């Protein structure tokens, strides 16, 4: 038991859990302040999340989690290696468009691989979008936060223009609906979770998270990357080519984000990219999910599903008179409590080592 509590992973998990609980409690208080009658019912619906809408709800939790996980993973992965890929937003955007574009123009491909080609293309262009800030950081020492912000806006406006130029649909003010032949395979999930949009993409997200985990923690390449992340000077000393690695990290992170955008947009027959000058909604969650997961790739699965879970709950909560923004507020409070995780962790460590300390004190006296 003590061993378990001292285990870093478990300790972080516990700390996150406490953050979540505290966040939910504060959220409930806010809800009570604004609408005392509906608060409790609304809250219950929210924390029942996907479960309060039968199988479909669960299916939708998994569906929304798919893109959340992938974009959160993009940010987490970069964080772990010492880069702050705030550009996941733009990579997701451009990846979405390219996937839709390829889906439309790739209908000559055999149907079973149309989706695959499309999302891979989305990922690749996302990766290209990541290269630019990566190269700028590695070789020109340009702060990646600023270059990524610029790349995000460029992606957004560029995609808007490319849509006008290529797949524009007058009545949708966006791309046309994606062709049905290139939708993500449902692999029977539509039978288990009828009415939801969950598809193979979810398993891809899981698989990719595990792959990223393995990459980071089990391979020599990951070893290098993490060394760069924790201490670039030491990595340099150890002969690691940290410049090349920064670029590679941005490529991989860009690919993950682009893939997320692609999968999202091939998930439903009525999906299309709507021209907009606000970033896609999913991108708002990239950093929160990464932070909530303590930037661990497996943690991202949990936090992605969690955010998705309460988002679904939040939609249903509208029935109790709470606007969808309530969920964002609660999410924010939960993230804030993640800041306490250091305190929580110390607390857990203290109670587990209390005995040891007592003994020690005695010895001193």
């Amino acid at each position, binding site marked *: 038991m003590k061993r378990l509590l001292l285990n870093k992973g478990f300790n972080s998990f516990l700390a996150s859990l406490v953050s979540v609980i505290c966040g939910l409690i504060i959220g409930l208080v806010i809800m009570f302040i604004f609408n005392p009658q509906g608060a409790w019912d609304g809250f219950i619906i929210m924390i029942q999340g996907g479960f309060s809408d039968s199988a479909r709800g669960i299916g939708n939790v998994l569906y929304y989690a798919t893109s959340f996980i992938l974009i959160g993973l993009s940010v987490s992965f970069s964080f772990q290696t010492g880069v702050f890929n705030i550009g996941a937003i733009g990579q997701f955007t451009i990846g979405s468009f390219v996937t839709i574009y390829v889906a439309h123009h790739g209908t000559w491909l055999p149907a079973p691989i149309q989706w695959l080609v499309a999302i891979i293309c989305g990922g690749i262009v996302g990766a290209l979008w990541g290269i630019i800030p990566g190269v700028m950081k590695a070789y020109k020492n340009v702060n990646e936060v600023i270059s990524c912000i610029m790349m995000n806006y460029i992606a957004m406006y560029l995609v808007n223009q490319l849509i006008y130029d290529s797949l524009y649909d007058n009545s949708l*003010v966006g791309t046309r*609906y994606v062709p049905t032949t290139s939708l993500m395979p449902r692999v029977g999930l539509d039978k288990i979770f009828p009415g939801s949009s969950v598809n193979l993409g979810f398993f891809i997200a899981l698989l990719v998270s595990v792959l990223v985990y393995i990459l980071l923690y089990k391979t020599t390449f990951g070893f290098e990357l993490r060394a760069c992340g924790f201490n670039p000077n030491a990595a340099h000393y150890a002969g690691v080519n940290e410049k090349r690695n920064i670029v590679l990290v941005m490529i991989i992170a860009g690919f993950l984000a682009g893939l997320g955008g692609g999968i999202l947009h091939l998930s*439903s*027959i*009525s*999906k299309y990219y*709507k021209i907009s000058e*606000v970033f896609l909604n999913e991108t708002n969650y990239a950093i929160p999910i990464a932070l909530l997961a303590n930037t661990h790739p497996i943690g991202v699965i949990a936090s992605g599903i969690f955010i998705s879970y309460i988002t679904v709950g939040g939609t249903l909560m*509208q*029935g109790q008179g709470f606007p969808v923004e309530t969920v964002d507020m609660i999410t924010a409070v939960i993230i804030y409590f993640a800041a306490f995780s250091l305190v929580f962790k110390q607390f857990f460590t203290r109670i587990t080592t209390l005995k040891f300390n007592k003994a020690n004190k005695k010895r001193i006296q």
Partner: protein
Amino acid sequence: GSKKKEDDAKKDDAKKDDAAEESSEEPASKDSEESSKGEVVLFVSAAGALDDRAFNSACWLGIQDFCGETGKTYAYYQPTEDTVEAQMVICDTAVKAGAKFIVISADQFKLSAVEMQESYPDVTFIIYDSIPTTAEGEEIIADNLKSILFKEQEVGFLAGYAAVQDGYTKLGFVGGMPVPAVVRFGYGFAKGVDRAAEDLNVDGVELMYSYFGNFEATPDNQARCASWYQNGTEVIFAAAGPAGASAFKAAEDNDGVVIGVDSDQSAESETVISSAMKDLRNLTYKALKEWDEGTFKGGVVETYGSAEGGVALPMETSKWKNFSQEDYDALYERLAKDEDGIASSIPSNTDYDDPSQIPLERTKITYVQ
């Protein structure tokens, strides 16, 4: 035309009062425990917002008018994203929470509306600006659903004509984004400007035409409008929802004027000289009233233009210099009766790919892409 409309409104008011009395006598519905969360429901799209100062706001006000009177509960729902699946989720949630009448205020629900009307035959729907259509392109309207469309081009036409008749020669149109309704406003405005120039023999009429690319009041939008005013544009017709505020602000700072959209926006800024109104609020109210009284008739598409009195300029609050009530009435009459094919000559959104293709006789149109 406008008199007729005003009369309608008066009648409506009278009806409203009646209804209020009736409802106060009626006890609150018995099963209010379960269905207290919204018998009348508005669906807005994921991309939109309840307070868009346009469509959604107007529908919402209509619902509030009705529910305020009858004591029925109301609510609005927004899906997580604009897919059929997500829209069905909120539909199910709403019905589970007691929805009996659902107002759908966006074209984005086109596909899911097909499913909604079939899944819930006991629930009554109206959908604005759209006709339920399957993915294959087949239009299906069930008996419990009514589609309501507007001829925005006609009120755009009114605004454009009035502006030229009032003496403006340098005009501008900005839409939020080229969604069908906005495009109709714009094309109608262009045609109205040109027609007035022709009828009244005005020379040198110029029209700037553009879309912001968004519906938000951003500094960029303000700057764009300001640059037009700076460049000589006198009046801008802003069909851009909340982004209209950017035009108002630019007008305030550059001594220009604005024509508002959707509802009477005269209260929002001194610079609003008139507004191209659609009667959404009232139509929503009426549809609900009919439903309440059991006279609702579904399965149809209703289109509202000048002939139906569904569009108007609010002359009481308008600040025209030369364009009088008489001028307005005459123009409205011509439009409603389609004299000399005036109404049918106004292009709709599907007629041209972009505004520069509209054949205009005496107007120089500059389309800023």
